[in-house]
């Protein structure tokens, strides 16, 4: 075997080695990307905190920061060693082949086998060192994949906490009085209770809301509830969100249901009316309510100015009160 063909084989083997190494890395990166992908949105939200924390962490605890980075390097080196073990095994497997290959190639491989870990580690160390000296963004690029998992855990945790705190808030805020109290409290009711009550439909609250802005034009309720301006805004936000999410041009949200409470929404041109009701409601009752809303709108809401102010609000609120709450048999009269 002459020297030239030996050199060629040498080249081929080296290329193969490189491929093996790269494919390992590629697989690693792919796996990390995959795990991170589904959390893209979340991590996008979290990254400013991570960044902020990292910055202050680095400033406040330089020693710990160094340790973490050192640990990361160590981890990386470990993985490299593992890959090299794999490569070694591969090469050993090909022992027969090596025998035929020129002794120079074998030497090269031996050399590589012995020096590779050391050289590779040095290169990595150097890279990390220069990157550490470089910008914060680059440090983040190195650390982010590793942090990815931690972030995910922390997000899951944060979400759980958020959920619990929302639950708590709903319980404490909404259990005080009025419709919203019962709206959220009623979960515990068992079906038997509900059946035995045979709830008649009761209108609890009525809101007339400017369609685009969500500003409250007027409202009336059986019992005083939370700030009605805010509720009107939230209804409108929910409505906007749902209508946007389903991207239906000519269909609008008509009903928000919660347990056995319903918020019935009737859209008009520049405003909409939201009616919060309790009790079980049949299709015909729904029709009756819609008719009542049309009647009210026709007689009282013909001229609604674009600018909303106090006096308009009290005028409309008074009318709503008279129309919906001053008679006992609300539905029967419809």
């Amino acid at each position: 075997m002459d020297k030239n063909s030996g050199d060629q084989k040498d080249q081929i083997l080296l290329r193969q080695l490189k491929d093996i190494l790269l494919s390992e890395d590629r697989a690693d990166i792919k796996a990390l990307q995959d795990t991170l992908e589904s959390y893209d949105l979340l991590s996008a939200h979290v990254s400013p905190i991570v960044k902020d924390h990292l910055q202050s962490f680095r400033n406040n605890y330089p020693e710990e920061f160094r340790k973490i980075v050192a640990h990361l390097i160590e981890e990386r080196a470990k993985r490299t060693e593992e890959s090299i073990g794999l490569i070694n095994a591969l090469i050993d497997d090909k022992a027969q082949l090596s025998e035929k290959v020129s002794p120079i190639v074998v030497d090269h491989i031996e050399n590589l086998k012995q020096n590779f870990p050391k050289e590779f580690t040095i290169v990595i160390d150097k890279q990390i060192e220069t990157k550490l000296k470089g910008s914060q963004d680059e440090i983040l690029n190195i650390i982010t994949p590793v942090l990815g998992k931690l972030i995910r855990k922390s997000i899951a945790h944060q979400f759980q906490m958020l959920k619990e705190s929302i639950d708590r808030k709903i319980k404490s805020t909404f259990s005080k009085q009025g419709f919203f109290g019962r709206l959220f409290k009623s979960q515990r009711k068992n079906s038997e209770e509900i059946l035995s009550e045979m709830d008649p439909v009761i209108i609890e609250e009525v809101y007339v809301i400017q369609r685009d802005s969500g500003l409250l034009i007027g409202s009336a309720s059986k019992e005083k509830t939370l700030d009605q301006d805010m509720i009107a805004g939230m209804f409108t936000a929910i409505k906007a969100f749902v209508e946007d999410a389903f991207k239906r041009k000519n269909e609008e949200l008509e009903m928000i249901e919660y347990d056995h409470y319903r918020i019935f929404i009737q859209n008009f041109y520049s405003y909409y009316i939201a009616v919060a009701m309790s009790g079980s409601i049949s299709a015909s009752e729904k029709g009756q309510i819609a008719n009542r809303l049309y009647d009210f709108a026709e007689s009282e809401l013909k001229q609604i100015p674009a600018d909303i102010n106090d006096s308009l609000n009290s005028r409309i609120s008074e009318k709503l009160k008279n129309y919906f709450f001053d008679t006992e048999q609300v539905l029967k009269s419809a």
Partner: protein
Amino acid sequence: MISKKIILTGSFGVGKTSLFNKFIYNKFDEKYLTTIGVKVNKKVITIDEKEVSLLLWDIAGEVSQDKIPNSYFLGSSGIIYVFDLTRPSTYKNIVKDIDYLKNITDEAIIKVVGNKSDLIDAEKLNEVRNTIMQPWDIITSAKTGENVTELFHSLGKAFIQ
């Protein structure tokens, strides 16, 4: 008393909720709890002896404004576009964003706000001023309260004129 809708928008983590909470409750929290969906709240302010009721919509931040449901902006009299003076990524799309907002609203007053002024010194601030392609209306700090009342009152004032 008149009622007006104001929407707080901008990228995530820039301090929209913090400005909202500082203005309404005079509270600031170092913790970051990202807003999900929308939160609506109200504050009545008095300007030149006239009361104005501000309905504030605090929405979840998005990297680009065209990702936000269009209808959120409808009927708003004021749009507060917040960016973070310390994070260039929050103002790199600013020209496009402001153009977009101008396009989808017709009468809304848009205020461009650089927040977290407490984290940046005069020299750095100048640097940002020189790199940013869109002049800001006011710089604020939800942490120290700098210019927070001024921001909302400047809108209130514009509404009653």
